[in-house]
């Protein structure tokens, strides 16, 4: 029984490790593609700064809308890279919550991690 828990912990650690690495690399790939595309289409490296703030829901909605209608622009692609980057540590906290709740069955730390997750969720959808 002890070995299986230990194996699950080890498996979980490498899963989290690869998720973090994958998140950073995906985000870097999306941003580089968006930047090169932006430079190729406008001939300028810089763009116009956004007039107002945005949140994750809006980023995904704009990207999917443009993708569906076939009018994808470089800027939403860069925004998407940013969103993937933001979700990387967020997923890690979510994985920790799952670990404390399911593997360790530790109520105290499930509550602590739940608090961190709730605050982060709220802040990601801040407007």
């Amino acid at each position, binding site marked *: 029984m002890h070995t299986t828990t230990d194996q699950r912990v*080890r498996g979980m*650690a*490498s899963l*989290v*490790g*690869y998720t*973090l*690495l994958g*998140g*950073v690399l995906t*985000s*870097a790939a999306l*941003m*580089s593609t*968006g*930047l090169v595309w*932006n430079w190729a289409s406008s001939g300028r*490296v*810089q*763009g116009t*700064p*956004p*007039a*107002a*703030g*945005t*949140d994750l829901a809006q980023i995904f909605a704009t990207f999917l809308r443009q993708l569906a209608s076939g009018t994808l622009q470089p*800027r939403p692609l*860069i*925004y998407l*890279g*940013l969103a993937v*980057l*933001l979700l*990387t*540590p*967020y997923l*890690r*906290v979510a994985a*920790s919550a799952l*670990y*404390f709740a399911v593997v360790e069955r*530790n109520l*105290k*730390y499930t509550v*602590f*991690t739940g*608090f*961190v997750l709730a*605050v*982060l969720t709220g*802040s*990601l959808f*801040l*407007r």
Partner: protein
Amino acid sequence: MGGGIVLIPALTLLGMDIKQAIAITMVAVIATSSGAASAYVRDRITNLKVGMFLEMFAIVGALAGATITLSAPRRPLFILFGLVLFISWASLFARQGEHWRQAAQPDRVSRWLELHGSYEDRASGEIVRYHATRAYLGGPLMFGVGLVAGLLGIGAGSLKVVILDLVMGLPPKVSTTTSNLIIGVTALAGTSVYLAAGAIDPILAAPVILGVLAGAFVGTRVLVRLTNQTVRRFFLVVLAILGIEMIVRGLRGG
């Protein structure tokens, strides 16, 4: 030693507004800390419980700090930044040797929080067992460090390590990896405030993030060839110069 504390002065020297530099650097900090964490978690030195307990305080601090920066005047930001550079300088200077001795018995709060653990030391092959103390001080102090991190857009890794090392008595390896875990989440909280306020222009942020990632990749390869002493001396000089520079600019008015 993180990138943020060097990156922000560099961006402002290139003519970027300090608030924009702060917001963009906060995003870059997520990238570097997640990249580093992907290697650390598999080593299993990070103490998840210590990290989670302290994150509760750090993220609330970061949210408050970033909110203050949005409406704060620029001059105090320069001066505060200069001061944090000097604290990092002092912490680097003081951390000469990595001698660690287990603190006395853990107090009741730390015991209730189950803040103990063990890891295998690669160099000696021994299993190092440790416990944390003074969690009742570490938590509130971490709120303060989160506040500074959110205010200045940095990971504030050196300040976090001071709390984990000196206040809570954790071994240096555990402090370094656990502080990295807290940095990623703190930076995420701060970034979401800046993003919501429209302070992050992705077309400006993306090249900075890509540059920092490339720098971190090359940096770790160069670092392994240099001795610890050389790296330490280099950072001591850089931090001192940047600290003076930022304070002078704060006093002059940006």
